[in-house]
């Protein structure tokens, strides 16, 4: 049985963690693979600034740094920001799948141009960072938001009637005005809207969290992990220091 660690980028209670695990129901998975969801101990309140980005990187690195010793075969990071992905890749030999990078590249397997549909504009910096790293800004038709306030704990619960149509309207503008051939949900926290949108849009829409589960399976079966040349290893991983930070943050 292959074991995959899914790092959830905020501390949360069991009930809210279930809302993250619900992403597993949106994908048909092969046999012989199991997913364990683990919330981080260190996190910002949300992902809207560079301060937040640093805290997110640290928190996700801390949560996953020992994944290989713990016997996991791959790591998925449950955020389109790809926070912590590069840091984890530098210390782990097992595949580390970041939802953002993989969603953009998968989108280009399915169409010529994609748009990223976000809840609000405060997430733009997450996408421009990955687009710049990939050098694929010319493949992005647009970054659009529906102007909605996200909640990284309760997700979209109770707001479906207001949020789903607003997201649909913004997605249609991506297609009709911006020329998107494929839409990417701008956050794994938007997964509850995926089925609604997929039924109503004339183009494919990528649900980034579930995509990572399938790509983790592909990485394990094909024995394809990230390149050590692209992600050189540190001389001495700061496991002890990161553990001390994690314990301190958990106590606050």
């Amino acid at each position, binding site marked *: 049985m292959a074991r995959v660690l899914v790092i959830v980028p905020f501390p949360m209670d069991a009930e809210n963690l279930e809302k993250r695990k619900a992403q597993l129901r*949106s*994908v*048909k*998975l*092969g*046999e012989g693979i199991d997913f364990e969801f683990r919330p981080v101990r260190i996190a910002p309140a949300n992902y809207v600034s560079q301060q937040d980005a640093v805290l997110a990187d640290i928190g996700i690195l801390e949560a996953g740094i020992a994944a290989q010793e713990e016997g996991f075969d791959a790591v998925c990071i449950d955020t389109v920001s790809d926070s912590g992905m590069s840091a984890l890749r530098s210390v782990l030999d097992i595949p580390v*799948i970041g939802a953002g*990078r*993989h969603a953009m*590249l*998968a989108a*280009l*397997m*399915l*169409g*010529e*141009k994609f748009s990223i549909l976000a809840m609000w504009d405060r997430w733009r910096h997450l996408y421009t960072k990955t687009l710049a*790293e*990939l*050098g*694929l800004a*010319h*493949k992005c038709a647009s970054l659009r938001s529906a102007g909605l306030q996200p909640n990284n704990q309760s997700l979209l619960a109770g707001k479906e009637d207001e949020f789903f149509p607003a997201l649909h309207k913004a997605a249609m503008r991506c*297609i009709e005005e911006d*020329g*998107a*051939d*494929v839409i990417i949900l701008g956050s794994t926290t938007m997964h509850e809207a995926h089925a609604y949108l*997929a039924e109503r849009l*004339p*183009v*494919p829409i*990528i*649900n980034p969290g*579930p*995509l990572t589960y*399938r*790509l983790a*399976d*592909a990485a394990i*079966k*094909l*024995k*394809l*992990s*990230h*390149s*050590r*040349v*692209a*992600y050189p290893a540190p001389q001495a991983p700061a496991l002890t220091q990161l553990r001390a930070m994690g314990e301190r943050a958990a106590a606050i």
Partner: protein
Amino acid sequence: MPRLLMILAVGGGPADLGSAVDSDAIVTIRRTDAALAGFASAHDWTLADLAVLAAGQGAESEGFDAVCLGDFGDYGAGALRSVLRVPVVAAGRSAMLHALTLGSRFSVLVPAAGYTRAKKLVTEYGLAAQCASVRAFPAAEGEQSGPAFAAALTAAKACVEEDGADVLCLASTGDDLAAQLAAELPVPVIDPARLTLKLAESFLGLGLSQSRRSWPEPQVRKPELVEALVAAARRVGAR
């Protein structure tokens, strides 16, 4: 039980294609017509486009859930995507994009006859900035032992050491060549044909297929004409 149709050109081709797919998947390998073989020139590519379209255009009515094009040249990929609703996963496009999930710069390692086509695809997909190099090695498609392997390894090392590649895409369908090269190199080596099968499974598992906006349907479909053209070439025989 996903049924995957793998279309490959006449000649090489991996033996263990099915080893990475889920146990309930059924992989059918179909070779394109020998009369339309050859990959070295634009003339050959035009014929290969037709051959692949003919081999795959009926995939849905035959009950296939996805089509995988195992040759790196992506012959017929656009044409099949325009006539099919099921996912059509093309080896070249998928391998280069997948390479960028594993590193920031890739090289394409290609048997000499495929060099020009590989260069063309890199540009066409807008990936020239991410491509460290396209390097040819002198081997017939599918060859892998002895001098051919040595030549491939020499070219692969040059991709990494001289050109700065983080990841290699092997534009060849030879048995296990990717694994043999990876064992000798510090970077991952992608075997595009096997990758297409896993991606097809992934897209099916996620309910995804190619965008109709990128590959619009023809106004008038010509499946009988396509079939007749290939049949006519077959009657004349291989070149």
